[in-house]
């Protein structure tokens, strides 16, 4: 039971992490909390749905996923990035309203994304046309019930996150991004073309969100509200990890995802605690509330999040 929940937690965390990195990146460089981030994930998921419908399986398959799905994944990532960059160019860049104004604007943008998707695909839910799988036999003796798709989600997330780590630590663009996140003015006077770096940030952040969206659709279902419904949890992850910090967002994402999926362990908590009656437990319906509670407790002791630096943001 515990191993199974941990495995589920890892998979759910993978998706949260993909979403939270982008949110944190954009916050650190564009300077506002982007409420359209969840719907950017939805854009990625639906782009993949359309692409997968068009290209089909393309023959072979890896981990139960046809090759065509990986093409769809790439298109989903690209579309999410394109949509985000166009939005940045058309809307955010021209707005001179401060971070609160941008935040409210981004809520509006979120509604626009969702409305467009709803017009094209109706408000009903759907799934990718991929054969659902049974749990992997080899893991059943350990009580772990995951499918190859779940493994694919986890592996892809690890690959993407590692790629981002390499990019940030070892490339020129990564160094510039880190410089800009630390101090945009200083970065600009040092000769860094901050506009270009900002654009790349949007591409990377939204691209990761797009990937997260594609996997979210594979994991659960596609619906126009899918990304928005997950956004609060992603915010919790980002803030828990320390907003603005990419590595904090990863850590926060794993923690929040784990807490969310491990809640069933608490259903019998009454039997373990002395004062509380035996039949009492924390039901699944409180999974998100619990995640937020833990976030608040952590913030009481570390006001800038787990990986946040000393300065206030």
């Amino acid at each position, binding site marked *: 039971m515990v191993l199974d929940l941990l495995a*589920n937690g890892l998979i759910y965390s993978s998706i949260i992490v993909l979403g939270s990195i982008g949110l944190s990146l954009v916050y650190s460089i564009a300077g506002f909390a982007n409420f359209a981030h969840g719907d950017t994930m939805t854009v990625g998921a639906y782009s993949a749905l359309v692409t997968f419908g068009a290209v089909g399986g393309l023959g072979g398959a890896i981990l139960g996923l046809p090759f065509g799905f990986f093409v769809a994944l790439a298109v989903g990532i690209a579309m999410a990035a394109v949509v985000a960059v166009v939005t940045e160019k058309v809307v955010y860049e021209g707005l001179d309203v401060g971070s609160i104004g941008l935040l409210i604007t981004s809520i509006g943008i979120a509604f626009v994304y969702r409305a467009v998707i709803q017009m094209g695909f109706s408000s*009903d839910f759907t799934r990718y046309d991929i054969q*659902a*799988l049974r749990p992997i036999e080899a893991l059943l003796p350990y009580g772990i019930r995951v499918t190859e798709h779940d493994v694919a989600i986890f592996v892809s997330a690890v690959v993407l996150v590692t790629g981002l780590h390499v990019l940030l630590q070892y490339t020129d663009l990564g160094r510039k991004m880190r410089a800009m996140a630390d101090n945009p003015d200083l970065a600009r006077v040092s000769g860094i073309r901050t506009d270009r770096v900002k654009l790349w940030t949007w591409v990377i952040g939204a691209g990761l969100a797009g990937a997260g969206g594609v996997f979210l659709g594979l994991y*659960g*279902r596609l619906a126009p509200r899918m990304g928005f419904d997950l956004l609060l949890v992603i915010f919790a992850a980002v803030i828990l990890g320390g907003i603005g910090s990419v590595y904090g967002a990863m850590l926060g994402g794993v923690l929040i995802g784990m807490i969310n999926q491990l809640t069933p362990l608490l259903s019998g908590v009454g039997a373990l605690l002395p004062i509380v009656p035996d039949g009492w437990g924390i039901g*699944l*319906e409180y*999974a998100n509330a619990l995640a937020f509670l833990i976030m608040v407790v952590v913030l009481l002791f570390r006001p800038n999040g787990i990986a946040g630096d000393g300065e206030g943001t």
Partner: protein
Amino acid sequence: MSRDTIRELDRRTLLTLAGTAGIAGIAGCSTTDSDGGDGGDGGDGGGSDGGDGGDGGSSPYTIGMIDSLTGSLSAFGERNQRGKDLALAAVNEVGLDGRELAITVEDSESENQGGVSAAQKLVNQDRVPFVIGAVGSGVSLAIYESVISGTDVVQLSQNSTGLGLTDFPGLLRMSPTGRTQATALANIIADDGYDEVALTYVNNNYGSSLADAFKNAWDGDLAYDNPHDQDQQSYSGLVSEMNGSGADAWLFITYQAEYATMVNEMFSNGYEPQLYGADSVSGDNVLENTPEGSMDGMKIVVPSAPVEEQNYQDFASQFESEYDEAPTAWSAYAYDCVVTAALSILAADEFTGAALSEVVRDVTRPEGEQVTSFEAGAEILVDGGSASDVDYQGVSGPIDLDENGDPVGFLQITEVQNHSYEGIGFIEG
């Protein structure tokens, strides 16, 4: 777009002014009223949106309808509109004593607030005496409590099955209460030989009230009894807890999207319990988005139309030729709402809420002659019959609205066979 709205507003203001002038005219016994002959419904002249407030006798009777045209229940809204359109055509083919029936449709957006503003518009601005609405039980109740209650306007909900509506006799409905459904589920599970069941329900008024009704009717053990939140991306924790409970029969009271996700998670976890469900877990979208064979043997209780009756078959074939798909019970309820409203208008002494509410129950329930169409009912009423001379047998069932405003329930048990729903029996509640 905005320009149109302004123009429409202007027109409306103008109409209201014209209507007010009309009422003033009637009140003053002006001679311009010569062709009216129905001074009693001056309110109608003022509120009618038809654009011809002037010529009393031939202007349509306007009633209102609040529907989920958008929002989470929009699938029901679409079915309702189709049923309503067919009924309206059938009514106007015969006519209401020389006049037509018009229905002003407003969108509730499937939300309480949207429903209440729609009702306010219909009742306070358009001054309709009869409102059909709404779909969601919460929305219907919100409309009743904040707009209808205290006025004499008749409210007839087309699709609400929430148990709480029974406590409001003034709030009528066409769809049967969930209580019959919950009792039926408890009996079916017991008859199948299970003495313990794992139950999960959606964490809202609909889910918890139906779950409570089930628990009252269920004599066996409840191995698992927990709500779940709507709109979650993952229910894997839920299905593994249900599996952990050890029960072989699992009962789901939730919505299609949530249920489809759960079925996929049961499939990918390798769980194969005997499944049972309330009507809201069934739908083509569930079949399309779950693996072939993943739900076989599942039993669901759905409010049903009397599919063996002639009037339902006529309705179904007309519906199919019009919309190219089979109707659901939800379309039939909307159809019967419109016909019931039309019969009430014919039976009532005048076109006011007070007069309509006196007859609306009587035209649907026994003692009168059983009629299966608006045409047959209208014949009796036009010949001088009163409301109690008519007992309308709807395309959705016998109706027979009781003092609480609830109809007689007519339920069908369906079983999933080869990944499609097959009817295996009927229950009359």
